[in-house]
C-alpha cells in the first residue's frame, strides 16, 4: 500500500468541483489496515473509479492509532472516524451518533453517491440511513451470504430489509448472493445487479510441476476466524486424515482461530500432515495454491470466494443508472418504510427516520453547511494533488507529500 502522509500543500484557491461525473463516498467498517476480501474490493473499485474520472473518498472507523485523514495512491482519501468499535471490527449502531461526522464528510466532499459495503458493517447501514435523510443517492454492495433460521440471521435480515428498502441500487458479487439478498431483504430483484469478481488470469497460472504426486494436498487459504468456518475445518481434518493416509493440509492465513487448528494438530499428532503457514503476502498466494490438488473453502457466509480472485470490478453502469433516480421526500419515504418492513419494524424505523431528520435539522442549525469548508479535491490523475506535488518539487526541492 502506498500510504503517504496527510499533509497537503495548497497553492490555488480553486476549490470548485468541475468536470467530474460523480463524487462517491465508500462507507464500510472494513478497510485497510484490516485485511480481507471486502477491503481489497473497496480499494480496487475506488482506484478503478478514480481512473474513470470520478472522485472517491472512503470512510471507515479508526484502527488503533490510525485516525483522521489519510491519502492512498492517486489521492484516494480515507477518513478514519473515531467511532467506538463494538464487535469484530464493527462499530456500535445507535443510528445517530455517527450522523455529525458523516454529514460533515458528505457535505465537505460534496458527495452525490454513497456506496456502502458489507452487511456486517453497522457503519454502512448507518451511512445508508443518513444519506437518505440528507437526500443522497445510495448503492449497497453485499459481500456475504446469510441463513434464515437462527436468531442472529433473523435480526440481521430485518435490519437489512429496513436499510435496503431505501437504497437505490444493490450490487451482489455472485448470482447465489443475489438470490440470497433478494430473499433476505424482500427486494425487487430488478434493482439488484450482479458484478462477479474477476481473476487476473496472468497472475494465477497453473503449474502442475509444483505438486507432489505421492500425496494429495488440500489447500486452505482464508483468515482464521469464526465466520470462515475454521471450527468446521478443525472438525474435518482428523476424520479426513484417518480415512486417507496420503492426505496433507496446507493452511495459509492468520487469525484468532489458529489456536483451534493447532489444538487439533496437537491432539491427533498431525504435525507432518497439517502445515500452518501463517499470514501470507498477496504475491505468495499463487505459490501456495499451485502446490495443492484441492482448494477447500469452509466459509459460513462467503458469497464469492475472494481468496483466489483479484477483485477489480467496475461499477460504472450501476452508478449511471442510480443518478437518474429520484430521492424520495420524507413523507413518502416513511410510507414506503411502513409498507415495506411490516407494521412493527416499519413504524419503529419510520420513527427513527423522523428523529434522524430532526437531528439533521438541529445539526444544520448548529453548524450550517456554508460554514464547512469544501475539501480540496486531490483525487485522480488530473487532481490537484499530483500537479501541486510536482510543481512544488520543481520550484524548491522540498516535499512533505512523499511518504
Amino acid at each position: 500500500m502506498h500510504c503517504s502522509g496527510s499533509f497537503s500543500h495548497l497553492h490555488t484557491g480553486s476549490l470548485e468541483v468541475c468536470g467530474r461525473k460523480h463524487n462517491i463516498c465508500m462507507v464500510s467498517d472494513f478497510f485497510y489496515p484490516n485485511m480481507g476480501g471486502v477491503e481489497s474490493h473497496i480499494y480496487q473499485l475506488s482506484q478503478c473509479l478514480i481512473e474513470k474520472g470520478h472522485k472517491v473518498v472512503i470512510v471507515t472507523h479508526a484502527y488503533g492509532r490510525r485516525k483522521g485523514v489519510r491519502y492512498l495512491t492517486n489521492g484516494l482519501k480515507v477518513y478514519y472516524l473515531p467511532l467506538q468499535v463494538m464487535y469484530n471490527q464493527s462499530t456500535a449502531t445507535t443510528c445517530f451518533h455517527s450522523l455529525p461526522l458523516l454529514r460533515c464528510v458528505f457535505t465537505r466532499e460534496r458527495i452525490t453517491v454513497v456506496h456502502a459495503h458489507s452487511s456486517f458493517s453497522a457503519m454502512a447501514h448507518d451511512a445508508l440511513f443518513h444519506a437518505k435523510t440528507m437526500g443522497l443517492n445510495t448503492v449497497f454492495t453485499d459481500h456475504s451470504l446469510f441463513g434464515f433460521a437462527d436468531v442472529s440471521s433473523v435480526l440481521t435480515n430485518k435490519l437489512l430489509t429496513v436499510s435496503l428498502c431505501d437504497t437505490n441500487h444493490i450490487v451482489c458479487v455472485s448470482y447465489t448472493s443475489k438470490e440470497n439478498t433478494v430473499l433476505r431483504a424482500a427486494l425487487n430483484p430488478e434493482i439488484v445487479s450482479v458484478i462477479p469478481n474477476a481473476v487476473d488470469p496472468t497472475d494465477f497460472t497453473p503449474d502442475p510441476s509444483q505438486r507432489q504426486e505421492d500425496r494429495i494436498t488440500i489447500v486452505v487459504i482464508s483468515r482464521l476466524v469464526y465466520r470462515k468456518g475454521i471450527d468446521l475445518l478443525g472438525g474435518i481434518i482428523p476424520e479426513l486424515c484417518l480415512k486417507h493416509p496420503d492426505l496433507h493440509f496446507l493452511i495459509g492465513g492468520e487469525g484468532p482461530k489458529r489456536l483451534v487448528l493447532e489444538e487439533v494438530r496437537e491432539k491427533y499428532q498431525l504435525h507432518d500432515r497439517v502445515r500452518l503457514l501463517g499470514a501470507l503476502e498477496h504475491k505468495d498466494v499463487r505459490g501456495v495454491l499451485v502446490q495443492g490438488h484441492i482448494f477447500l473453502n469452509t466459509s459460513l457466509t462467503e458469497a464469492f470466494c475472494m481468496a483466489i480472485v483479484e477483485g477489480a470490478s467496475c461499477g460504472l453502469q450501476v452508478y449511471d443508472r442510480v443518478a437518474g433516480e429520484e430521492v424520495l421526500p420524507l413523507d413518502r419515504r416513511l410510507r414506503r418504510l411502513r409498507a415495506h418492513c411490516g407494521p412493527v419494524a416499519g413504524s419503529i424505523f419510520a420513527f427513527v427516520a423522523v428523529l434522524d431528520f430532526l437531528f439533521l435539522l438541529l445539526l444544520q442549525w448548529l453548524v450550517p453547511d456554508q460554514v464547512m469548508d469544501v475539501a480540496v479535491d486531490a483525487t485522480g490523475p488530473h487532481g490537484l494533488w499530483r500537479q501541486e506535488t510536482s510543481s512544488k518539487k520543481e520550484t524548491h526541492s522540498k516535499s512533505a507529500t512523499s511518504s
Partner: protein
Amino acid sequence: MEDEAFTDINGKAISLDCQSHSSFCREFTVSSSKVSIGKVMVYTCSVWLLSYAVFFFTENTAVLSSAIVITLVGMMLHIHFVKVDHESLLVIGSLGIQVSSNYASGRETTTFIEMSKIKDIVINEAIYMHQIIYYLCVLLKDPSEPNAVSSVVPLFQSSKPRLNCLVKVYKSCQEILSKC
C-alpha cells in the same frame, strides 16, 4: 490589510492582520471575537437561578455566597486561561517562527521555534469534536534526521480560522520560507 471578512469554523467573525516588517519578516495576527455580553448574562443567570433553586429547598445562605464566588472565579479563570483575544505568528526568514497567544486578561504565552528545527509549514486536516477541519501547522524535524517529521505544532489553535484565511497565511509563509 483587512480586506476580506474571515470567519472561524463556527461561523463567528475573526479578523486577520498581516504586517510586513521587511521582505523576510512578516507577522500575522488573528483576533477572535470578544466575549459577548449575552453569553456572560446567560452563564451568570443560569448559575444564579440554579443556586436560588437550591436555596429554596435547603434554606442555607452558604449556597448563595458560593454562587457569587463561583461566578466571579469562573469569569476570572475564563479570561485568564481560556479566552484568547488574539494569536500571532511571526515568521522571520532564516531565524525562526514565533508563536504567541494573548489571553483576554492580558496574559501572553510565547514560543519560539528555530529554523533548524522547522521542516515546513503546511495545511492539514483533522477531526475536531464533531467536525473535520483544516488547520495550519508547523512540521518539526530532528536535526539528526532531516527527512522525517518528528512532531507537529498546530497554529491558531484557539481561533481556528477557516480555509480561506489559512491559505492566505500559508502562501505568505511559504514565500518567506522558500527564500532561505
